[in-house]
């Protein structure tokens, strides 16, 4: 690997392999960049904007921007942290997020990033959307109240499971998740708890039934250490390869 295959991220030199995004290279080098819609196993699409950085002075999503030699990337600056904090505050008022009653508390990336970035108080008026839960499926509960529209379940169901169980409908603030059934109910799809789509929700929408508090609050994934300390878990699955 020639020495030119690296870029600078907040004063640190980050090596990269051809085809890697800024995000992939940073994570591989052990530098955490906040993200919600990015997942190491799926093609990035850059919708949540949490991973926004400044590249040579211009804002860009690090998950969709290919790494290039000599780039100067700013990530951990007060300006960018403020943007990320505001984006989280937006997501927190868009849905109905009530951590104390959520089975995913402690495993939830939205919550973990809130702690990571110091989102300590509500800022915007809550939108209180009406999002009925779907408990029709024998094994899985869908609580749309917590959906952040990252599309990971859609990508997983489409690309891995080949089932197209999930899709988006509506537009703008009315955008919402739908399932592949005329009744609109998950029970009428061929969804299964073994699907990849059942494993990827970064928040608490897709939950297995009859399983609660298997790990006590306080001992959960992000209780012990902040999300940035889990950087190894987000490393690219096959370095240099985009799924």
């Amino acid at each position, binding site marked *: 690997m020639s020495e030119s295959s690296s870029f600078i991220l907040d004063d640190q030199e980050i090596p990269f392999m051809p085809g890697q995004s800024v995000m992939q290279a940073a994570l591989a080098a052990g530098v955490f960049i906040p993200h919600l819609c990015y997942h190491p196993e799926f093609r990035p699409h850059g919708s949540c*904007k949490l991973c926004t950085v400044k590249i040579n002075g211009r804002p860009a999503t690090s998950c969709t921007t290919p790494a290039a030699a000599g780039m100067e990337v700013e990530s951990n600056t007060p300006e960018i942290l403020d943007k990320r904090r505001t984006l989280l505050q937006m997501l927190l008022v868009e849905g109905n997020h009530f951590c104390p009653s959520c089975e995913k508390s402690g495993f939830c990336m939205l919550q973990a990033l809130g702690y990571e970035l110091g989102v300590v108080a509500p800022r915007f008026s809550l939108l209180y959307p009406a999002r009925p839960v779907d408990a029709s499926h024998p094994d899985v509960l869908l609580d749309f109240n917590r959906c952040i529209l990252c599309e990971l379940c859609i990508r997983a169901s489409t690309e891995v499971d080949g089932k197209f169980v999930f899709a988006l409908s509506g537009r703008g*603030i009315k955008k919402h998740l739908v399932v592949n059934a005329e009744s609109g109910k998950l029970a009428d799809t061929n969804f299964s708890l073994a699907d990849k789509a059942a494993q990827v929700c970064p928040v608490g929408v897709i939950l297995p039934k009859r399983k609660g508090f298997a790990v006590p609050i306080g001992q959960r994934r992000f209780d012990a250490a902040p999300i940035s300390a889990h950087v190894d878990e987000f490393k690219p699955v096959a370095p240099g390869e985009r799924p």
Partner: protein
Amino acid sequence: MSQRYMGTSMKSTDAINAVLKRHGSDGTRLMQILRETQEVLGWLSPATLTAIAAGVNWPRSRVESTAGFYSFFHTESRGRYRVLWSDNITDRMLGNMDLMQAMCEKLWLEPGRVSADDLVSVDTTSCTGMCDQGPAVLVNYRAITRMTTERVEQMVELIRNQTPISEWPAAWFKIEDNIRRADILLTSTMAPGDALRASFARDSAASATLDEIKKSALRGRGGAGFATGLKWEACRNAPGHGDKTARYVVCNADEGEPGTFKDRVLLTRQPDLVIEGMTVAALIIGADKGFIYLRGEYRYLLEPLNTVLARRRKHGLLGENILGRAGFNFDIEVHLGAGAYVCGEESALIESLEGKRGVPRNRPPYPVTNGFLNQPTVVNNVETFAAAALIAGKGADWYRGFGNARSTGTKILSVSGDCERPGIYEYPFGVSVRQVLEESGAHNTQAVQVSGPSGICLNRDEFDRRIDFGDVPTAGAFMIFGQQRDIFEVVRNFVHFFAHESCGFCTPCRVGTTLLRTLVDKIADGNGARADIDEIFHINHLLQTTAHCGLGHTACNPLLDTLEKFRPAYERRLNLLKFVPAFNLDAALSQARQMTGRDDAGAHLEAAQ
């Protein structure tokens, strides 16, 4: 009554199958399939979507995904008569809200609701492009202009009596061109085929005509102003992808920017010029298929345009071996949109052409290399193609004789708002804002919004600025606001527009535009504080720097522009400059007062303090 629990009836099944057959059950034609089905069945029931999904062999979820994205597709019944009031600020200035209210009262209806007998619904819609002849409505997606109290009364009667729209007064559906000033585009009498013959005469490979386009310095008329010649050259040089290599020409007639209606008039008065420009583009890039993406609001133009296309086919100007030139095959089809402003963005438009949600793609790659069906595609505005036809026919030197040093040719402006002669004005580039105001009969002008809500708001100190790419670029909208207008209400209208039209893909635009709407409404209700202005700045900065596409980037323009230039319009709305909650505390106590039967000073908040 409801199809929801009954599957599709025999009649529905036949109708759906006929539409599917017409489109070869091709899923990429889903937009047309959904629209035509809805035109027959009234709405798209769950069972209808299931049947269509089975027909095109797509997952049902994908079909529902597309159907749910567009304002003009109904996945719930909206009544047999759907009346949509165009809600641009110019319609508001002409009194559309009072008329809509009157209509709703006569129909015993709330805006947005469907009558209990499933007869009628009344609602608002984004600007329908009739700003020079408003207030305008769409009734079952047919455009009606110049609404008055009398027309409202008559329309209510017609709806109550269930008179078919085809029997409504023909005069209501008359759309005026209102051409007030014409220049080379609108006066052109170039015969169909002349631009193609001139191109053939230059050379066989059309590179000489491409050179003319480049030399003309023609830039895109849709707003972004990209050099047309460079775009066409990039597409011509782009390799195709896969086995089915092809190139495409797309005319962007999704004229959604509020206040813009010049493409409607060009497609009415000079359709041959536009189509000839597309054909020249096809010759240059080597395309054999083209689309006119026509906004759903202009549904009434579909048949006239198809007639022109058929005539041109008959005359050998479209189809195989055009004008006898062996191997030059090109045909065009009109593709209707369904009420989504964001589809004016070229990559979102292509997604829509492919039957999907109109969400802008990640770029690069750009459409010139990876466009429709991932093949090299040129997307240009209606006016750009018309200008290109003139250049191909008459040459770059002739064309460069119009305009100024910064911008060649002419620009068609759609003038509306407070002036005596709203309508279409074609000027050579370089015309001053003041001249347009004078010639349209505008007096005591306070502000002009150029290029629509995503453009720029000019105050009276700026009226000597010029319309061109170096000073005030524009896609064509020119909305005039007299001294009597409240600029805050103008901006509020624009903020609501962007919140309604955000595609919802990225967080900052999806949530940010809604939060901005909440904040301006809070200020409008008299509950605003200085902190809200600061928050508006903060959200706008986030949108400008992190939004996925141009819609999000420009959604802040009206607020930022007017906060700088018309600050008093905001500040006089701020009752208190300290913190004020999002609701009126004293009003919140009204129920308590009612229950206790008190209304004395001590029962009010301000007095109690």
